[in-house]
């Protein structure tokens, strides 16, 4: 009796040892994106592309640290579009699962709520979605477009096109408000008088755009007007419907939207948006060998999604009508940059990976990016015109724009 229990103990220890030996060949990586709730529409695509990238790296032999190859093992959690839950899930990833790095967050408010968690536990977060800047944490790397990589080039383009009047329209939350505050200062620096700038916000889910469109129509009557839109989500549909009904077009008053990428386009009536502008650091229509490989590989992967080298079960991938977009590209770039930095540092430790990340380069689908000392990327910026197919035709390229999170540095 005693003996057998001792034997059991032995076997158990042996199994545990074997398991830990196996576990040593994988590295845990957190994925923190909402898979339910209002943001699920956008964030699920990022979860998909992250798993795809892990698979891509594992197929190529994983992450090489020293003489060993580590397979990336994803830990996917669902913060359910609930901001406090983001903090809880982040804590769980860092403390319980002990992941080496986390890729996640979409809205600025979710990033703001996990930031203290990452700073307290000295974690590492990669943030991939265009944002308002004015933030820099030791523990976050922002592959996202900063204001001077999206809003400023777009406004520069409009100014070069001879636009003199700017209608800043946005959803009522931190990103549009901060971006528009910066844009207003910038436009003033460029000599646009106050009376030619109008700033308007609507609540989330607003559907009645009659008054605003009538106002835009009046505003545009004098010519040389444009709309800078930071409207988020499905409010864009009633807005653009009303806009088209009022006889406004991209010819007499173009709209440049910062929150509509190819992915959001899937839910919008393309017909009503044709000719309007978008500004991102990546478009699916880019013609580079890296991009055609990325798009091709991703489209193949979603048909049979798996993460090579792990037992991870991929679920909830919808293969219908998929596209790639800037946040997806930036999510993937983050993973590759992290992998290179880990290999350079020869360790998964955050304090060693952080310095190794600075100066890291990667030739992505939209050209080469470099991680700067300010935790943001040097990236190419493109302005595209929407086509009925839901793609963008690139009409202007700004090469090698260095992201600057703090507006006081470029508002001079």
């Amino acid at each position, binding site marked *: 009796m005693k003996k057998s229990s001792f034997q059991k103990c032995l076997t158990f220890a042996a199994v545990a040892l074997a398991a830990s030996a196996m576990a040593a060949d994988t590295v845990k990586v957190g994925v923190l994106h909402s898979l339910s709730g209002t943001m699920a529409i956008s964030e699920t695509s990022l979860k998909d592309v992250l798993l795809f990238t892990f698979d891509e790296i594992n197929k190529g032999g994983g992450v090489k640290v020293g003489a060993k190859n580590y397979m990336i093992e994803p830990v996917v959690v669902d913060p359910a579009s609930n901001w406090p839950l983001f903090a809880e899930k982040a804590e769980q990833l860092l403390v319980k699962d002990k992941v080496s790095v986390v890729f996640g967050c979409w809205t600025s408010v979710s990033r703001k709520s996990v930031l203290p968690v990452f700073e307290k536990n000295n974690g590492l977060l990669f943030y991939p979605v265009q944002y308002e800047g004015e933030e820099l944490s030791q523990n976050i790397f922002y592959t996202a477009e900063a204001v001077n990589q999206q809003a400023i080039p777009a406004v520069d383009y409009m100014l070069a096109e001879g636009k003199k009047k700017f209608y800043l329209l946005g959803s009522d939350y931190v990103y549009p408000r901060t971006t528009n505050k910066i844009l207003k200062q910038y436009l003033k620096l460029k000599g646009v008088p106050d009376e030619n700038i109008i700033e308007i916000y609507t609540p989330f889910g607003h559907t009645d755009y*009659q008054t605003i469109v009538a106002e835009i129509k009046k505003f545009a*009557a*004098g010519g040389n007007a444009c709309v800078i839109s930071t409207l988020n989500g499905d409010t864009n*549909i009633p807005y653009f419907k009303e806009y088209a009904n*009022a006889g406004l077009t991209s010819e*007499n008053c173009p709209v440049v939207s910062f929150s509509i990428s190819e992915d959001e386009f899937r*839910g919008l009536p393309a017909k009503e948006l044709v000719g309007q502008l978008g500004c991102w650091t990546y478009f699916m229509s880019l*013609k580079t060998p890296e991009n055609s490989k990325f798009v091709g590989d991703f489209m193949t992967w979603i048909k049979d999604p798996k993460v090579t080298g792990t037992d991870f079960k991929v679920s909830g991938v919808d293969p219908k009508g998929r596209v790639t977009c800037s946040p997806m590209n930036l999510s993937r770039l983050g993973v590759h940059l992290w992998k290179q930095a880990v290999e350079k540092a020869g360790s998964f430790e955050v304090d060693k990976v952080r310095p190794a990340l600075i100066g890291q380069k990667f030739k992505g689908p939209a050209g080469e990016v470099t991680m700067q000392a300010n935790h943001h990327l040097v990236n190419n910026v493109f302005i595209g015109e929407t086509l009925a197919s839901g793609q963008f035709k690139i009409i202007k390229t700004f090469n090698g724009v260095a992201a600057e999170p703090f507006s006081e540095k470029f508002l001079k």
Partner: protein
Amino acid sequence: MATSFSQSVKRFLLLLLLAGLFAVVARSHGQTNEARAILTRAAQSEDTDAQIEFVKQLIGAGDELVSRALSAWRVGELYIHTAPDGAKFPFLLDAQQDGAGKAKGISVIDGQFLKGADGSPLALLANELTALDNSSKLRKAIKTTLDLYAIGNPVPKMRRDAVIKLGQEQNAEYLPYFEARLKIESNPEVIKTLNEAIALTQAVNEDTAIRNAAIARLGEMRSVNAIAFLKDMEKSAKASPAKYGPETAKALHTAVLAIENYQRWGNLVGTAFRGLSTASVLLVAALGLAITFGLMGVINMAHGEVMAVGSYTAFMVQGVFGGGLLFSLFGKTVSIKGMGLTGSGFDSYFIFALIASFLTAALVGLALERGIIRFLYKRPLESLLATWGVSLVLQQVFRHTFGSANVQVNSPSWLSGSFVVNDVLFGYNRIFVIGFALFIVFATYLLLTRTSLGLQIRAVMQNRAMASCMGVRTDRVNMMTFAFGSGLAGMAGACMSQIANVGPSLGQSYIVDCFMIVVLGGVGNLVGTVTASLGVGVTNQILEPWLGAVLGKILVLAAIILFLQWRPNGIFVTKSRSLDG
């Protein structure tokens, strides 16, 4: 019989269409060939002055390829090709490049790709080609030509937009072209904008008399497009009176006043219309609830989801009329083949969608009443919880069937666009909603006052026990009333698909507004519902331009709360024993 008739109609229409097409092609062909020939001659010429003359001849030609070639020439990207027989003609490079940066050449003469000896398209590298020279004088001529190009556009709307844009540049060089176009223009709207553009351009003329006359004309025309410019001019005239002289200052003042006055009226009418349309949206959404909650006293939290049933029905009818439908039912993918209609055949789907959405929503309401609500008439709090549960279940059903993303319900062409009267915009979809609201209110009124069902409904509502004693089958009346209210909600959902989004959480965004309207109007009173939605809609639209959408909405909500403190039973109080009980 019917098919052969419709076939012959179709054939006739097709013939007409073809004939029209040929006429257009024949006409434009002659013009474009000429324009392309002129451009080719310009490219072949060695003399800059001759080139400028040729380029000027191209004004208003309206050919897309020529305008592309001119834009390319301006930036030095128009190239010269020498054919094997020694003939020289211009071509441009296709925007699509291959991996090596090479692109196909497009001949300006016929728009075809340049072909090599073997007949396959040539792949050319930009910096190995001979580009046509240009000088600053020529570039300026090209720019003028390009700017004026759109005046010749065959589509009146494009012409109008082009004229508006050119007028705003106030470039005196354009005047002769405006005047030339005015002589041959037949579209009244374009004529109006041409006159406006001429006046706007002359308003900066050196000659005081011409200037003042032009300003006065702009005022008479009530030119909304000119107001910004006139105001600027008035400001600078005030700052330095010597610049324009007192006469002009006076003319400016009169013109600005006239236009502003006109705009004020326009604003008033516009706000009234928008208020009416917002009110109609609220009314359409709330009327169903006014019946189920107002008349029957069922706190129906699933009202919004019943609306969504209507919206999704519209989506399905659209699929059946158009390119088919794909959704999953209990995990199985169901595919319905569409009729593949286009044009007005497809556009008529919406009428059927309204009817179908009434029926499906009424059925859902019927099932809801029979299955759950009839057991809970005496227990309002439990019916609140139960219907809330139903609303969650329905939302999840939508999610599983149609996906969590929004679905697209296209607007039929007769519901998109707008017409403009005196610069006030009337959107067709908004007019439709107003008309639809009138229609359903009227229909409900007729049902309640002119039919025996209506009589019974009112009887049951006022005193259930007494009505029952008089032989009214209250059970059946309840069922019919609830189904009718749900049907109205379904129709509202179909109607909303034209102005808002259709998604699983559609109902959530209306439920609060609906209850608010019904409570504000006074529970159990349809006139109250109409009045309340009018009041809220118009107030909302009056406040929005001043305070913005966010603050406007907050203020309206605060006002409603205060109002209900003063009159807790709403605008119209219905005295009824059953409600009191």
